[in-house]
């Protein structure tokens, strides 16, 4: 398994046998976990399903034992009938609960990047292929907030959206996925672990606004955010270029004529801004990264062209969503200079 964050990996040197013992003691390693193969996502086959009574199931069992003792004591034949009927119901329920989960496939798991501190949403798609309705399938992960559930019609897919808090920048893995169900009677819980490629790119938290990128080289820093976005005079349309913000696309014009058009405003910055690591100030590297993120966010919202200069990496000036995310990704994964 990948370690939760790249920075944590190389902090303390641990001798190999100790690491081995430690990882062996971590019993979760020995659990059977459904994994993806080259053809499809993790499938919850018969080997991967665990099943145990829920608390309600234990109570149900206790009540059946009480009923059995009562029936023996009072020689109630119908008492035996009902006791055995309910016991058999519990057993049948076990099979139903088990098969409610069996052979589901985690066909897809997707998460959009978020800023640190925000909640990421994991979208998990489960595929049903055995032609049975699946009721109340829950998904959860170790770091997730609340298990969520869905019903999946026969031979279709269902989507479960899990919320997941993030704290630190970088790739974050929600951990092994737990899929479970207690349907139909809530007496037993069947569950499976699935390893997915699900991971969330967590952008660094933007620093508080106010400190503009004053030392940057040209106009972008000078104009306030408002004047750049709101009250400008419309200057006309120009052909859409990749990287133009979708907000600027003039959909009406684009549908009327052939081709896509972007709105162009008077006073929009023409030249580009350089957002430079060496321009940032702060007590530590993480805060300087946050500062850069703030600048990227502001520059992106201003709609201008901006470039990013980091110690090991330089991203040429550009604009648009893709560039924006490229910059944020670079910042999220940036290794601090020694």
């Amino acid at each position, binding site marked *: 398994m990948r370690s939760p964050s790249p920075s944590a990996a190389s902090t303390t040197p641990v001798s190999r046998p100790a690491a081995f013992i430690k990882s062996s003691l971590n019993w979760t390693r020995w659990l059977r976990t459904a994994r993806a193969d080259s053809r499809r996502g993790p499938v919850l086959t018969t080997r991967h399903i665990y099943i145990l009574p829920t608390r*309600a199931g234990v109570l149900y069992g206790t009540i059946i034992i009480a009923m059995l003792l009562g029936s023996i004591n009072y020689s109630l*034949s119908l*008492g035996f009938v009902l006791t055995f009927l309910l016991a058999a119901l519990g057993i049948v329920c076990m099979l139903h609960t088990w098969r409610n989960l069996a052979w589901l496939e985690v066909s897809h798991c997707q998460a959009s990047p978020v800023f640190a501190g925000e909640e990421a949403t994991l979208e998990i798609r489960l595929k049903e292929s055995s032609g049975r309705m699946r009721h109340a399938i829950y998904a959860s*992960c170790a770091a997730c907030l609340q298990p969520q559930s869905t019903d999946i019609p026969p031979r279709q897919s269902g989507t479960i959206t899990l919320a997941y808090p993030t704290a630190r920048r970088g790739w974050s893995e929600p951990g092994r996925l737990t899929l479970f169900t207690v349907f139909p009677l809530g007496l037993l819980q069947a569950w499976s672990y699935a390893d997915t490629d699900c991971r969330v790119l967590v952008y660094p938290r933007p620093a508080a606004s106010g400190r503009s990128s004053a030392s940057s080289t040209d106009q972008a820093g000078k104009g306030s955010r408002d004047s750049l976005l709101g009250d400008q005079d419309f200057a006309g349309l120009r052909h859409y270029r990749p990287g133009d913000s979708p907000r600027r696309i003039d959909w009406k014009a684009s549908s009327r004529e052939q081709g896509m058009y972007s709105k162009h405003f008077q006073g929009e910055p023409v030249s580009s801004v350089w957002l430079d690591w060496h321009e940032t100030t702060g007590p530590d590297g993480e805060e300087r990264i946050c500062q850069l993120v703030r600048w990227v966010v502001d520059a992106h919202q201003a709609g201008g062209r901006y470039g990013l200069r980091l110690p090991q990496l330089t991203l040429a000036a550009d604009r648009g969503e893709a560039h924006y995310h490229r910059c944020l990704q670079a910042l999220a994964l940036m290794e601090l200079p020694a």
Partner: protein
Amino acid sequence: MSVTRHALRNFTPQRHDVIWLLLSLLAVWGLHIAHLPLWINGLMALIFGWRWLIASRGWSLPRMPVLLPLTLLGIAGIVASFDGLFGRDASVALLTLMLGLKLLESRSSRDFMLVIFIAYFLTVNAFLFGQSMLVAAGMLIPVTGLTAALIGLQKPQSGSDQGLQLRLALTLLGQAIPLMLVLFVLFPRLPGPLWGVPKDSYKSMTGLSDRMRPGDISELSLSGATAFRVSFTGAPPRASQLYWRGPVFGYFDGREWRADRRAGYLPRESLSVRGEPVRYSVTLEPHNQPWMLVLDMPSQLPAGALASPDLQILAREPVRTRIRYEGVSHLDYTLADQLSPVAERYLLQLPQQGNPKARAMAEQWRAQLPDHQAIVDTALRMFRQQDFYYTLTPPPLGTNSIDDFLFNSRRGFCEHYAGSFAFLMRAAGIPARVVTGYQGGELNPVGQYMIVRQSDAHAWTEVWLPHRGWVRVDPTAAVSPSRIEAGIASAISESASLPLLARRDYPLLRKLYLNWDAINNGWNQWVLGYNQQKQAELLSRIFGASFPLSLLTALFIAVTALVLGLISWVLLRDKTRRDPLQQVYARFLRKMARAGLQQAPEEGAQDFSHRAQQQLPMQAAQIAAITALYLQLRYGRPSNASLQMLKREIRNL
């Protein structure tokens, strides 16, 4: 699993879940409504209504200041209603009350599940009050409803498909039934009780009492309840010979006849029998007394039974469940041809005072008549020739009840005749005692067995004559011979006061009734009477002469595993693998694997085919043909390529 647990605890059931639950609880309540005190029923109706309003109008649930006093009042009410006697009735009332109060504070699905479990438990309690087929069928309604409600609680979203809930509940129960039958038949049965049984559990049982007062048996005769059923091996005896021996009374205190405690010290009376025995088996309804009814005169003891010196057959415990036993009796017998002086003294016991006229008459007979037989005949002649009437509604008798009956009212039922006859005999110096039991019985042609009802209850006497021993004398026969020959319905003029089923009119109704009784008898024998003994009987019937019960557990586990395996196989088959084409193609892949060619996971059928053709040039054409067929069947129009062809090709490979 802590991650998964709390999600399931916290969601609030939706309105239709509550309605479902309320309807199922109504059905559970319905099973009990007849044996709950009126105020509990009223309270439950109130609680159900209230909970319904809470669900439908969105009212809030009552809080502690309301619930706590309600709980305390309810418990106080139960203590008051049942006089502090905490038996069956009180515990059922308490359980019902608990269910209602829990319902009033249930908000989460977990609470509702607890309510459902209590309701399941309450359902089983209904069988303490009766286990007829009707109750058994009635049980299915609440059980189905509760299961459906339980299913509804597991669906946090879009659970509004009530049909699905009910269908699934019925499916689950349907699949549970085979397993239930296996458990019922093979689960090793323990004989109860494991602990004490509340005293009031048997209060409604009727039957012969341990004493006899004027009016007792005529009261019992008004009950149409079945006392026991008998199936004879061979032809049943004539009706006039059907004397079913019950409690024997040898002590008279001037008012009532009861068993002589001292008789226990007497030696067992000798019995010699002649002729062929009558063999039969009795299924006795529970009556909460130890006696077991047998045909006069029992020559062998049923298994596990005891006999008193005067040949009363007793079970070791009061009969509280339906029991079945084999009886062997001889109709031609001599009982106690010798009587010890001590026994004779006991059997002549009479109170010091009372009934002077009857005593005087008996003294006179003793002085005038030559022997005991003549005295017996004279007494019977008196009953036959004077104005004695056989009636279910005799007038009440005064302090000297025997005198009052013999010389004033002269209207009585069998206990009057038997009691006064035994009194006269003792007064005349003849040892005599009263025997109670049943006389007659109705043959049910449907089930080939005899029904003996409480209305057949009877009392007669035995007198001891030198050289002959005990002789049965039935003074009622002298008054009303048809009582003995044809049953009570023909002997009583006011037949309308008899229970409907003891009467002989309405032939069609009787026929229906006899059919119904035969079904009921089967139910009693095979469902309600299914115990350790019956289990052993059934197993030896299936597995030959003697199935050792020590193997029962093994058999039970084996059959349960078998049935469970079968159900699992039906339910858990992986249907994704049941694509026939895929199976056939898999056979091809297996053949190729044996030739050392493995299809790679990312390799499609076509790519694999190319590779295989290169590696196995000898079979190249066949491999190509098979792949083409497969591809056509899978993706093309399957008209000109059949699965059979593909199968053949693969076989030939």
